[in-house]
């Protein structure tokens, strides 16, 4: 199995994948409800944090600084983490990361693992790799459990099952947990998950997690979560394996004060999420005896090398950009063909894939800028999207592509006043086959997408410049 990021190497283009989702009224209702709710809560807690912009500025500067010195901070983390009793592994790509994790699980003789929600392991499709080798992963985050038991795919970075409502979740739990009765209040469903997982927390000896932050100065790891399933996986098993992208390192313990203020307010609209855990290596009589961190590259170094899109690596996976995105609002996450959905997915996924696949993603945005406005680490997502569109055009498109030919022709037209004026005349005269009573109601080819739901006024007889010239002449005459 070769994996770069989630399913995207074989995913449909965004505009095609979006179609069935746009027709799913229930899904769209669920997505709107969830994103509206988080956004409303976020708005309140961001407003009360009066130094929000200063925190964003600091976070962005810390991330920029870290990436500029990434080799040093990573090796510093490795050194301190090792001194604290941990073991660091390096993985070039998803397959290597999965092999390392599987090797460790086998080395410790495990047949099952308990997992905290981790984007990185979704990215590498670790669960599939483990299952193929006969190891059973139990997702312990409520939403990830819903996804796993429902044989579904995550559709959001923070609340991966937001596309399912309570009735749908109840059905999944009844079927997959083998229950005879179950209420349909969120409390009932949550209690069922608690009962289902508690025994596993007490029994399974290996935990697998991601990491929100790796602290270079101390060799510490920080994970933020809400349900306590994270703390279970971090402290109950004998072995803990954490998989983290190389961009997750921050220089100092003190830097956490910036991110711990930005992340919960951005992600769930809370002042602080219920639990933050920070720990360093192994601790005597408290938590796992063996702690491994797998540092994953998987295309991140190529993002680092692209100066204009390097800021993509600032991301702290809060998903505020998904919640505010008017495109995500319509489709939900599955249209993005990867576990990284929404605006951040639209820039992250194609870069990790080296632009070979997912070429439609940089275009899955109206460039409205809402994502940049809410981003706690100031990733200028529209700017990166435009940059990546440029790379798609330059690296992937043939010069004979109809769009490329059209764009080049237009550029030539705009290159001279006389060509532009001639084109205005030509368009006016040439539009007669599609105009009726001053309106265009059907256009051929790509432009048919425009007239599918919109009428268009016919091009008027006199462009502005013709009116201006006429007026100038009249005024000259009068003078």
């Amino acid at each position, binding site marked *: 199995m070769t994996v770069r990021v989630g399913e995207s190497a074989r995913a449909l283009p965004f505009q095609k994948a979006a179609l069935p989702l746009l027709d799913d009224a229930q899904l769209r209702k669920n997505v709107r409800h969830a994103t509206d709710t988080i956004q409303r809560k976020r708005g309140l807690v961001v407003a009360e944090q009066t130094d929000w912009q200063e925190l964003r500025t600091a976070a962005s500067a810390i991330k920029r600084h870290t990436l500029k010195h990434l080799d040093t901070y990573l090796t510093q983390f490795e050194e301190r983490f090792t001194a604290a009793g941990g073991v660091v592994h*390096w993985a070039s790509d998803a397959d290597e990361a999965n092999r390392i994790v599987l090797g460790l699980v086998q080395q410790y003789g495990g047949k099952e693992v308990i997992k905290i929600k981790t984007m990185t392991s979704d990215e590498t499709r670790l669960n599939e790799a483990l299952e193929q080798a006969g190891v059973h992963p139990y997702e312990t985050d409520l939403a990830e459990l819903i996804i796993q038991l429902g044989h579904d795919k995550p559709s959001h970075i923070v609340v991966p099952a937001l596309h399912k409502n309570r009735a749908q979740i109840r059905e999944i739990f009844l079927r997959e947990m083998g229950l005879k009765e179950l209420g349909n209040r969120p409390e009932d469903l949550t209690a069922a998950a608690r009962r289902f997982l508690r025994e596993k927390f007490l029994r399974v000896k290996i935990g697998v997690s991601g990491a929100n932050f790796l602290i270079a100065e101390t060799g510490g790891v920080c994970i933020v979560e809400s349900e*306590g399933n994270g703390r279970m996986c971090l*402290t109950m098993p004998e072995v803990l394996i954490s998989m983290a992208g190389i961009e997750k390192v921050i220089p100092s*313990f003190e830097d956490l*004060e910036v991110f711990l203020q930005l992340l919960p307010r951005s992600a769930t609209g809370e002042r602080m999420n219920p639990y933050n855990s920070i720990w360093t290596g192994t601790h005597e009589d408290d938590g796992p005896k063996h702690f491994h961190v797998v540092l994953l590259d998987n295309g991140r170094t190529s993002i680092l*090398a692209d100066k204009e899109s390097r800021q993509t690596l600032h991301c702290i996976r809060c998903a505020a950009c998904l919640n505010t995105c008017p495109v995500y609002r319509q489709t939900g996450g599955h249209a993005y063909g990867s576990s990284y959905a929404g605006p951040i997915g639209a820039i992250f996924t194609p870069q990790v894939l080296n632009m070979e696949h997912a070429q439609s993603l940089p275009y899955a945005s109206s460039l409205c800028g809402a994502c940049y406005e809410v981003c706690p680490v100031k990733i200028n997502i529209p700017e990166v999207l435009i940059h990546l569109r440029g790379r798609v055009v330059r690296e992937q498109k043939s010069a004979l592509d109809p769009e490329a030919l059209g764009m080049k022709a237009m550029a030539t037209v705009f290159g001279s006043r006389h060509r532009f004026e001639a084109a205005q005349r030509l368009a006016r005269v040439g539009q007669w086959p599609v105009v009726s009573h001053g309106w265009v109601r059907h256009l051929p080819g790509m432009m048919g997408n425009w007239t599918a739901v919109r009428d268009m006024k016919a091009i008027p007889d006199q462009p502005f410049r013709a009116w201006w010239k006429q007026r100038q002449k009249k005024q000259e005459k009068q003078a």
Partner: protein
Amino acid sequence: MSGTREAVLKRIRSAIGGSSADAAAREAEREVLPREYRRAGSLDADARLAMFIERLHEYDANVVRTDAARVAVAIGAILQEHGQRSVIVADGFPVEMLPDPITPKSGAAGGPAESFAFRREEKANVEDLDRCDGIITSCFAGIAFTGSIVLTHGPGEGARRFTLLPDRHLCVVRTEQVVETVPEAMDRLAGFATAPITFISGPSATADIEMMRVRGVHGPRFLDVVLVG
């Protein structure tokens, strides 16, 4: 394996235009990173504590304020109110703060009189923690602005699993431990940076189903805070 390490580091160095090994230059750059955000609070002690209590309430935590002389009474009242009989106390938690375990008092809601039995953390295994009615700890700090309690799992604060498995967590916070802002708490934690640290902000919760907040998923469902001073 070490081949991969070198390969990744090489790719990083090539991406950033060479090694960043010049420690002095790097530190100088780090020193001047903009940190214009609020690093100290501005509230007086009363307002700070009022904010702490208000925000704990917003997380559905139960807060009782008392003074040093009456901590044990306050703890006893909470245990009785919730009918907690089997209670485990963190190692190092001061004995004088514990109510007398053998005094029978009338139980909650007019039920039969019950006494509570205390056990120490060191004598309890995972199953005991799973089955007990609650645990008692002290803490390292409180943060008013976020309504958080910070544990460094030192004496009196329990090991990490200790404050996780039981259904009810009673935490004693001294008023002088409460700071206003997150940076002030991080400042106090500076000397404990490599200890296990847990921030607790209300009972465990989820909003994964239709964005409705449900309290108590895997961690304690109930958080009682006794604020002393």
